[in-house]
């Protein structure tokens, strides 16, 4: 008799991490529609993995790993498919209508700044300071050493300082 997995923990994980995964995807693909789809697919696939009898030690890290694989897949497929419309790099992140206009403007400015970072530095620094993961956890998710991650974070902060100072001159 196969034990049917109970979905409580899974849905709790969704409640806790869905925004974070969405945001992580957004800062890779810069398309909020696509980020939503990838986020949903991340959770769907994770559930499939669970339901096939596999055990996941660290659910949060697993979610990020799945998301990253999907992101890589989606950018790779863009190049393979012919006669299909490529997704546009739109400037429409996720904001709610009731957000203050000022917040929206600040948010968009922040995105514009962060977009100028090197992709690998951006990924590391956002996972650290926005998603709140430790360098060790980030290293585990991305398959890099903790040291490599720390270096990237350090360089990202340096680039950010330069970008912000330059902007203010």
């Amino acid at each position, binding site marked *: 008799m196969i034990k049917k997995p109970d979905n409580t923990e899974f849905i709790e994980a969704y409640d806790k991490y869905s925004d974070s995964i969405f945001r992580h995807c957004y800062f890779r693909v810069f398309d909020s529609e696509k980020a939503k789809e*990838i986020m949903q697919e991340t959770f769907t696939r994770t559930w499939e993995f669970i339901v096939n009898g596999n055990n996941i030690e660290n659910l949060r890290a697993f979610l990020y790993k799945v998301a990253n694989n999907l992101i890589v897949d989606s950018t790779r497929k863009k190049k393979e498919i012919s006669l299909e419309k490529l997704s546009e790099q739109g400037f429409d992140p996720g904001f709610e209508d009731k957000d203050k206009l000022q917040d929206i403007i600040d948010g968009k400015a922040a995105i514009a700044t962060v977009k100028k970072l090197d992709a690998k530095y951006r990924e590391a620094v956002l996972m650290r300071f926005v998603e709140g993961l430790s360098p060790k956890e980030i290293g585990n998710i991305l398959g890099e050493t903790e040291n490599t991650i720390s270096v990237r974070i350090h360089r990202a902060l340096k680039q950010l300082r330069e970008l912000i100072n330059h902007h203010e001159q």
Partner: protein
Amino acid sequence: MNNKIGQLFEHIKKIRLEQKEREEIRSFLVSKTLNGRHQEQGSNILRAYFINFYRKPMLTLIIALTIAIGGGFSAAAENSLPGDILFPVKIKVNEEVRSAVAITPKAKAKWEIKIVERRLEEAEKLAAKGELKADVSAKIEVNFKAHADKVQKRIAEFKAEDKAELSSNFETSLNAHEAILEKLLNRAVDGKAEIKKIEIKVELEAEKTSKIRRESEIELSEEAEAEVKVETAAQGRLNALENKLDEVEKFIKNMEEKLGAEATAEAKARLEIAKATMAEGKVKFEAGLFGESFKLFQQAHRIAQEAKLLIKAEKELRLNLDAEVKTENKDDKIDLKGSGSLEINL
């Protein structure tokens, strides 16, 4: 870490899904996972489909294998055309699966547009091979109309900004396909009537969409309350446009190496027009005429996209090849690459 950087991260933390969308996905996941259930997408469609095919065991076996390998989505069916064995799988399974994956209204609208494009591409491929028969063509027309109507219905539900964007994208696509059908019409030896009928339907739909696009652009520029809203919309469109022009430029360069200068000349010319239009838009933007600039950025975007679609069509249909080289066209063979992994093409 200094204060300004901290503030930056605080702003970024505010980026999240809209409450409504988050809940939608949550409900979807809850129903999917209740009691440890794992429902196959499209399983009901499969059941209905197999009932029709019980008399043809071989067919059923091929399709069952294809679907089983693809996990509900058949990569092999993606290249099929009306009249092919796998074509029903393409529309009844693959397209259903992808419909289900599109959750947000905008994603759904974009997917409906994609379906319309797929029907037109299929018609074009058949026409290029000289295989567009009357009965198939009639079905394509009906399907085209049905999905085009769905697109219009979805577009109508959006606010001015998204309406303008979606109708602009749809219009571009229809115009490009109209041009392709025109070229096919000129090149065709027989079956001209079928091509012409589809072309006319596409033209009408393009006109309809153009009207909606223009109306929503007017609506957008007249939205008095949000001078800032229009400005950020125009800014957004400009950013997308700059990326688009980069992308198209690189694509043309790439294709020029493969297809030659003549094949890409028209596209290059359009790209130049697109750049000039963008420059015009920038002038308006600087002058504070955000509604006008938005329209111009949209226009430039359309022209750039047209350039790209034309080259793609040239490449796919080899429109510029001499007539002698018609014998062995590799692109026309159906590609039976089965996918071994559980993948849904986003």
